[in-house]
């Protein structure tokens, strides 16, 4: 016979209370006991492609080298688009990872809020040889508005350089050894390699997309080459020389509409170049492993001088340290990052960008290790002309030229789509950026 379970309110309340207490106790981990267990340093990364595999090798090498030394790195890969939100949520609850990947110049807000911590002192304590880093990399790792402190340990330097499909070059009767050095010749090459059906481009001489990152970053590079500045050197005036910025917008539009060497119909630029739908594609060193593995016949060259000065996009990846309730962890994390930096030969030859460390660049095997110099060389030598980096202010992401969804990209997309006049777009960009600079 079934029994009905009857409890009084008081008994029920007690039972619920006990259950809740037990559940709460089970949720909290045992306290961290120093010295009793090996130290585990938590590292978050968003690298998920072939560069992620090399980075995982770096972490494994660290762990192998420190097996008996009581310290290990635990790496967790977070999807890139969720990375910032997860770090912020973790930091807000006191559970941030010890260190993770960041992009120089984009973290002014985090520096102000105390999500990332300054590293000058802890780097000194652990003996990280900052003198071995290039001056430019350290400059980019600092935030002038926050006492010019160092908020990142640079790991690799990246630039955008043209990757060129050599089969297309040969097919068009061009000389692969004489890649264009200026804008006019570049357009001639692009025209020679473009394929059309009637008026429609079916293979782009210059690989573009109708929206997103590619036209935005192209505009950013060409504009700065033509003399435009997103912010003055003192970070007080936005959009210096707007006429140059407008001329660069027209230059991008002409690729589609006047020269007809690009099509807006491409959605996935990486895939399109990999499948031969484009001949010249300016992109970064993160593409090398993939294209080399698929045996794409390509060489990489220096970005041509389209405007008054030859320059290209600059990006620096590095390790940033997140705020910890236990400050003693910073030193252990810096020891780990120091090891990773000192041993970053693999990362900076096969993984991704060029090394920021002079000792590695001068290593006799630096040019022969990794992929062939034909595909990799421009990403190392080209760092000399990579100066269009981030603007280190709170609203830095609004200024980023390598973006497909920020304020700049959304405004420019309307120009590429013929929905907004160039003058109006520039006026809006100037107004918003000035507000952003004024905000600090």
């Amino acid at each position, binding site marked *: 016979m079934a029994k009905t379970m009857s*409890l*009084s309110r008081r008994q029920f309340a007690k039972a619920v209370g006990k259950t809740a207490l037990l559940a709460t106790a089970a949720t909290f981990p045992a306290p961290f006991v120093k010295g009793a267990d090996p130290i585990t340093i938590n590292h978050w990364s968003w690298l998920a492609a072939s560069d992620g595999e090399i980075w995982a090798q770096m972490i494994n090498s660290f762990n192998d080298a420190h097996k008996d030394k009581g310290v290990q790195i635990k790496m967790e890969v977070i999807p890139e688009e969720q990375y*910032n939100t997860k770090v912020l949520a973790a*930091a807000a609850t006191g559970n941030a990872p010890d260190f993770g990947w960041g992009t120089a110049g984009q973290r002014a*807000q*985090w520096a102000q*809020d105390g999500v990332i911590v300054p590293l000058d002192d802890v780097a000194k304590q652990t003996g990280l040889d900052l003198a071995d880093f290039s001056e430019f990399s350290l400059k980019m790792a600092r935030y002038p508005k926050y006492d010019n402190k160092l908020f990142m340990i640079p790991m690799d330097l990246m630039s955008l350089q043209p990757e060129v499909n050599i089969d297309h070059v040969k097919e068009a009767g061009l000389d692969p050894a004489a890649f264009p050095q200026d804008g006019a010749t570049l357009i001639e090459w692009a025209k020679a390699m473009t394929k059309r059906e009637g008026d429609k481009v079916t293979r782009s001489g210059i690989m573009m997309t109708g929206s997103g990152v590619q036209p935005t970053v192209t505009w950013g590079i060409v504009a700065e080459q033509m003399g435009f500045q997103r912010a003055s050197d003192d970070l007080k005036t936005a959009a210096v020389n707007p006429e140059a910025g407008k001329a660069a917008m027209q230059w991008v539009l002409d690729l589609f509409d006047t020269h007809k060497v690009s099509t807006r*119909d491409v959605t996935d630029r990486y895939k399109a170049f990999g499948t031969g739908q484009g001949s010249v594609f300016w992109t970064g060193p993160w593409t090398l492993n993939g294209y080399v593995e698929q045996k794409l016949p390509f060489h990489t060259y220096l970005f041509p001088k389209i405007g008054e000065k030859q320059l290209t996009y600059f990006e620096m990846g590095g390790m940033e340290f997140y705020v910890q309730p236990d400050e003693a962890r910073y030193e252990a994390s810096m020891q780990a990052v120091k090891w990773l930096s000192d041993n970053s030969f693999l990362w900076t030859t096969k993984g991704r960008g060029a090394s920021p460390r002079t000792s590695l660049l001068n290593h006799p095997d630096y040019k022969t290790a990794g992929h062939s110099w034909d595909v990799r060389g421009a990403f190392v030598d080209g760092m000399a002309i990579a100066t269009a980096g981030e603007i280190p202010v709170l609203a830095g992401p609004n200024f980023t030229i390598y973006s497909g969804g920020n304020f700049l990209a*959304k405004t420019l997309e309307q120009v590429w*789509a013929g929905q907004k006049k160039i003058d109006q777009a520039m006026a809006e960009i100037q107004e918003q950026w000035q507000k952003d600079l004024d905000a600090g």
Partner: protein
Amino acid sequence: MAMKAARGRRSADEEPVDWVAYVFVAFFTIPFLLFNIAPIFFGAYVSFTKWGIFGKPKWVGLQNFRDAFNDEFVGIAFTNTVLYGLVIVPCVVVIGFTFALYVNQRWPLSALARTLFFSPYVVSATVIGLVWVWMLDTQFGLINHYLGYLGIDNVPWLTSTNWSLLGVSIASVWWDLGLAFVLFLAALQDVPRDLYEAAEVDGASRWQRLWLIILPQLRPVISLVVTLQLISTLRIFSQVYVMTNGGPASSSSSVIFYMYNEAIQRQLFGYASAVAMLLFLLIIAITIIHRVAIRER
């Protein structure tokens, strides 16, 4: 007197209550309150603040709402979302109903058709998006390939500001059809056979039977499907994210996609919450208008 009252309270306190029912209900109610209701109130609060997860929200009053009304891209996102509703909801209702009618007739292959019509619904929106990106590719897509046989030029489904919204809508209609189809089919099978027989005896044509018997009988289900579909379409996100990333030039952006960008990419949670509140009001308004318009008499 006071002792009597105390005794009375105690006896009510000690009165055995069958709590098991509450425990069963609690398995649903507590997570629902925690994860559905509480976030709504929290979101409403955050919409009046400036907040980026780290640190305390800073009260800014109506500033986020003022910014939203002045933001050109919010206007575009809301307009697109309404357009999605205008394209997707009627298509899903009409095509879903037509498919259900076909299967309900038990014509040849109707058993296979039932599975085929429903199957897209069991696939995730992300997968649907990826498949349709390939199908709708301008140069190499299957759709343009077959349109070519009809002498139709390549259509830039996902890369033109004029077509991208329609491209995303096609994928959404294909995905959403399954649920509408099943609901309509169940309702059709509930229509009493004697009504059909009486109509046949009275000499009603097929069209008259559809118009005068089936549709009035299906009125509550049509109302349900339209409401569900409206709410689902106003929250469209995955297809937009996967297929066009809102572009080109925000032409396929939706409100939820815009909110995602503002909150997750830019950490402007206060502003994104304000936009969410505006969408919440829009959904409530549309639902009320719809309920009033298709109210059962």
